[in-house]
């Protein structure tokens, strides 16, 4: 059985064609798989292995290195509370305690209704707006306990524009065929690109 939907299979091919070596598409394809399924299944890794010309074990090796790839189902909304220095100095510890009690789970756990997964996370590049958190990798700034409760209510009632877990960029890069230069494989190109060849400095 095929893992990727027809539409995603086409997207996968489009992504692979942008790289000089198809293995470079591995992380983007893992993201695509997670977008489709919400997490990374064995079937997804097997199919990605086939697509980029390697083994499932190699795909698992890469997949398991990166924090964002989930090897088991997670909530519709993954809430990452930053716990690194600036956020910690500005009350991230209290925010985490509040979040654990509001959601009734410990950091790392998911609510039984499958809506929320709570995680302690590392620096999210929003240090001036501490304490901050991300819902499916979208920021919330200077979060108070009340704001956290409100956020949870909005998310629970789908009254929020955060897409479900797995969806990152809602805009895809698309290279128009007539503008596409195509990749330059390392072993095929031996001369300088044409604009580097100046005829007597006339340029």
């Amino acid at each position, binding site marked *: 059985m095929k893992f990727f939907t027809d539409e995603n299979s086409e997207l996968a091919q489009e992504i692979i064609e942008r790289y000089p070596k198809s293995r470079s598409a591995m992380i983007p394809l893992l993201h695509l798989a997670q977008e489709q399924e919400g997490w990374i299944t064995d079937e997804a890794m097997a199919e990605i292995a086939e697509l980029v010309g390697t083994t499932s074990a190699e795909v698992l090796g890469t997949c398991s290195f990166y924090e964002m790839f989930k090897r088991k189902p997670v909530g519709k909304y993954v809430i990452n509370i930053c716990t690194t220095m600036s956020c910690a100095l500005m009350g991230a510890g209290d925010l985490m305690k509040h979040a654990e009690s509001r959601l009734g789970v410990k950091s790392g756990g998911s609510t039984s209704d499958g809506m929320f997964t709570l995680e302690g996370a590392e620096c999210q590049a929003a240090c001036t707006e501490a304490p901050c958190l991300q819902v499916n990798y979208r920021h919330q700034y200077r979060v108070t306990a009340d704001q956290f409760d409100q956020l949870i209510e909005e998310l629970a009632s789908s009254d929020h524009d955060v897409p479900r877990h797995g969806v990152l960029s809602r805009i895809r890069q698309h290279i128009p065929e007539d503008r596409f230069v195509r990749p330059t494989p390392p072993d095929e190109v031996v*001369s300088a690109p044409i*604009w*580097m060849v100046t005829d007597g400095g006339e340029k």
Partner: protein
Amino acid sequence: MNEMTGTPIPHAPGFIANETPRIVTSRFDYEDSHTLTRYEATGGYEGLKKALQRTPEEVHNEVRDATLLGRGGAGFPAGVKWGFCPPEVWPRYLVVNGDESEPGTYKDRLLMELDPHQLIEGCLIACYAVGLSQCFLYIRGEMAVAQERVAQALNDAYAAGYIGKNIQDSDFSVDIVLHWGAGAYVVGEETALIESLEGNRGMPRLKPPYFPASIGLYGQPTIVNNVETLSNLPWILEHGAEAFTSIGTESSPGTRMVAVSGHVKRPGVYEIVNGTTTFRDLLYGSDMCGGIRDDNQLKAFVPGGGSAPWFTADQLDLPFEASQVGPQGSMLGSGAIMVMDETTDIPAAALTLTKFYAHESCGKCVPCREGGTWLEQILRRVVEGRGTARDLELLIEVGETICPGDFPHAAVPSKGIEAVPFPYRMTTICFVGPSAFAPIHSALTLFREEFEAKVAGNDHPTMIEVAVDV
């Protein structure tokens, strides 16, 4: 609303304008700063057009003359780095490092979200100057909005003829491919970034070669530049190296973006004059952070991202100039300043950084993989009141397995402690391991009494207890 100052949070969250000439943040005030329309209406792609009228060599020389220091952390001049590509080895690639994740660092994300075309134009100029055949724009995985803004900008720039085949009807053709990570701090290290881009676990490569410019992506010459570095190029090409070097100092020209967070009145991302602005200007200036919150005393600050040894009020008058900060025991790094006021529990603050680096160790080098974890666990029990005086020695002993010899630190004149200059020696391939030790070493050197208070009265546990704990 900003709860601390009562002012509205501006369109660009975190960014605060000041009197500095604005080179990379010039469009941040516009709500549509990320669009092609706004970009073209405000001089966008003019630098590229000027570049295309000159030879690649001339463009390269312009950037070299500008002494544009890399803004990612190491501060190496971009024009010199470009020159490390071995002649006549093709193809060459450009990899844009947008994997911003150093604790406290927060500028590349704003540049990608608020002015993606400026970054794209910078990429194009670099590719033209150095003969780079393809560009991979690697954005940190956890930055969904930056990915959306850059994707849209790339699509618009392709459609408008700025990227792809025969750019602006010239013989210059290059693709820019949007790539994004999946959560791993170490991938910010340039050789790990390349490994990740090749579809592998993001582990740094053994050095030498020190620069991917000689052997990089797929074994080919590869330039890895930071987002802020590249974002400076359109301005340099439009206004010239001379205009750039007229700002700041000779060795550190131009402006740079810094993020100040923690216990200040106006935490924010500021564009400041490089080389001359001091930490005091930044932390206390009325157009910048405006002082420590609640008018408290400054206790310590991290001057250059979580990896940097700490400074105290004694170092406030140092400028943003590597040649002055280095001898005083730290580095400017990625332009991230984290401020701790007098209420801060110093050992606990150090733990928030050490646990970061322990967590982010890729596991390739044993001193980092094992030592980082040990450092975190020993420090945690000290912070929680379960440590002993022996643990304070143990922290240093474990740290010395990662960084043998004297570790850099600031001077403390009141205690008769002299500075040990940056950098350090290391037993690891990259800086993640030493970075786990840096906060501990600084905190223990500058505020030893706080650690001693935490372990006071605790008896030595047996070796078995230690082993169980660790």
